[in-house]
């Protein structure tokens, strides 16, 4: 196992007006690995996530998930196919409790409709109990059991980030795409996040990780790619990427690699 490809991107391109946000980006993410995506601000990382999850259609190129093309699929169909994501700027359902947030995540894997709810059928009740149990279990996995009944907006920043992960996991994805999950977290929270991600990966989850915390990415990832101005400038193991002259020049400047993430080199 391990070298079977889960998500393939072929020559993806996306532009906003005159701005080329992504240009000829190809990636191959293997089942079971942790794949890191780094790059300076505005490099196009989030845009790549938006293409993968169908929020924007790509202008060029194709995406394959489990060898099936994703082109033309709507966001919710892509989630059903097995890709879940979190958001860089947290997008929880803020007026709903943490528990309800995760319960919403169970939506694509459950089926109770209006009639089941109206007549409160046995299958609807059984499914509701299942959703509730599953949501509690996921909150526990993410260390949020204590916060279950609190509204999402009341949670601390770190808890909100973890709740986003719990909610994404509820969709039962094969690929979990995390957009800067450690942004704004303190040291202990980052460590807890790292443990959580390794735990998920050990259970077979494939992770795609955008992260500015270079130390975290280097420590976690099996392989990684570097984007700069919408182009992929390097790909490989953390060691290879660290030594890639393009990366050092374009992204890291002349600083040693273990510095915190540098911002726009200009």
């Amino acid at each position, binding site marked *: 196992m391990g070298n079977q490809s889960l998500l393939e991107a072929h020559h993806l391109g996306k532009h906003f007006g005159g701005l080329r946000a992504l240009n000829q980006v190809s990636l191959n993410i293997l089942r079971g690995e942790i794949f890191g995506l780094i790059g300076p601000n505005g490099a196009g990382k989030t845009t790549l996530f938006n293409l993968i*999850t169908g*929020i924007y259609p790509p202008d060029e190129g194709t995406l394959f998930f489990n060898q099936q093309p994703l082109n033309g699929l*709507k*966001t*919710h169909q892509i*989630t*059903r196919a097995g890709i*879940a*994501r979190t*958001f860089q700027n947290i*997008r*929880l*359902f*803020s*007026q*709903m*409790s943490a*528990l*309800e947030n995760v*319960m*919403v*995540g*169970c*939506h*694509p*894997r*459950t089926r*109770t*409709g*209006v009639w*089941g*709810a*109206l007549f*409160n059928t046995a299958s*609807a009740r059984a*499914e*509701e109990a299942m*959703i*509730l149990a599953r949501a*509690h279990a996921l909150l*526990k996995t993410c260390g949020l*059991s204590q916060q*279950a*009944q*609190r*509204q999402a907006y009341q949670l601390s920043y770190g808890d909100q980030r973890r709740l986003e992960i719990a*909610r*994404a996991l*509820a*969709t039962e994805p094969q690929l979990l795409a995390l957009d800067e999950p450690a942004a704004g977290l303190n040291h202990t929270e980052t460590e807890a996040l790292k443990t959580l991600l390794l735990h998920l990966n050990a259970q077979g989850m494939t992770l795609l990780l955008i992260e500015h915390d270079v130390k975290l990415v280097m420590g976690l990832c099996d392989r990684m790619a570097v984007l700069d101005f919408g182009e992929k400038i390097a790909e490989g193991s953390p060691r290879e990427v660290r030594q890639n002259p393009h990366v050092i020049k374009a992204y890291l400047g002349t600083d040693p690699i273990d510095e915190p993430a540098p911002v726009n080199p200009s």
Partner: protein
Amino acid sequence: MLLVSKCHFLGHKKLLGLILCIVLFALPFLLDQYLGRAWVRIIDFALLFSLLALGLNIVVGYAGLLDLGYIAFFAVGAYCYGLLCSPQFGLHWPFWFVLPLGALLAGLFGIVLGAPTLKLRGDYLAIVTLGFGEIIRIFLNNLNHPVNITNGAQGITLIDPLQWQSISLAQTIHWGGIEIAPVHYYYFVFLFCTMFMLVVSSRLERSRIGRAWMAIREDEVAAACMGLNTRNIKLTAFAMGASFGGLAGGLFAAFQGFISPESFTLTDSIMVLCMVVLGGMGHVSGVVLGAILLSVLPEILRYAGPLQMTLLHRVWVDPSDLRMLLFGLALIVMMLLRPKGLWPAKHGASTNAPSENTEPPAKNAQHG
């Protein structure tokens, strides 16, 4: 010890429920006795508006879709009943068929009018739905021309009351010294329908679909990323909300015996929206409270005229002016003091899990 106190608490709740039932049962007779028949009618309308507000609450409160043309679905239900149970076409179909049909038809209209608005949010959605509401009214006003269907501005008269074989709700009977008039019967019909729709609303609210509606209200993009088919879920909200309106419309036509496009104006849409917002968006009890308050308070203000006469021997402020003035003032004060409504939704309480521990609720608490 804990169990005993829990049982006591449950007993308390049951007692309250019983008292509420008795009050609700006696209310029309008491009102009739002490305040006059007009007040029973006012309460009837309060219940009818509760139905409307519950329906609009699904669209605005749960799914967060600002609909300013909601009264159109009320009109669809009313005209469905009016055309199928009146001399207009000489049809007198049974109400138990026509009322659900009206709800269904209104639901269909909900989908048809909702579909073009799927990509719109907030103000834009409000403007388009407002337009649709007006279109329906203007249609009803003008569908008398090459072929007379709706009788235009004259409206439809002599609509059948709710009746079954020889039993009709339009009769007055005397029973043990109490006069039971149509307004009384309709009170109980409307009360039953409101209770029924309360149950429907709260079941939907706590279901997978209800959560999906709220998720879309909170963040549509995130909802789509959680695998929600936002298009279908929004259309379900439009259809469910509209069908409540359709049912209320049918009941309205049967109750009034007369309908015309004048009953379905933008002002009425806004009124229902005010009820939802004032009561507490997304909270069924709050919404019913809002509907009852906004139907009853203006009627109470009618007494302002006679009151001024007796106290000041002259009407200084015209009661109808006062009504709009106080109404506007009340809304402003509300928005300042309680922006989430008089009786807002308590979030997190909608999932019936215990608050602290993660175990399922103790079984023995049920038997108390």
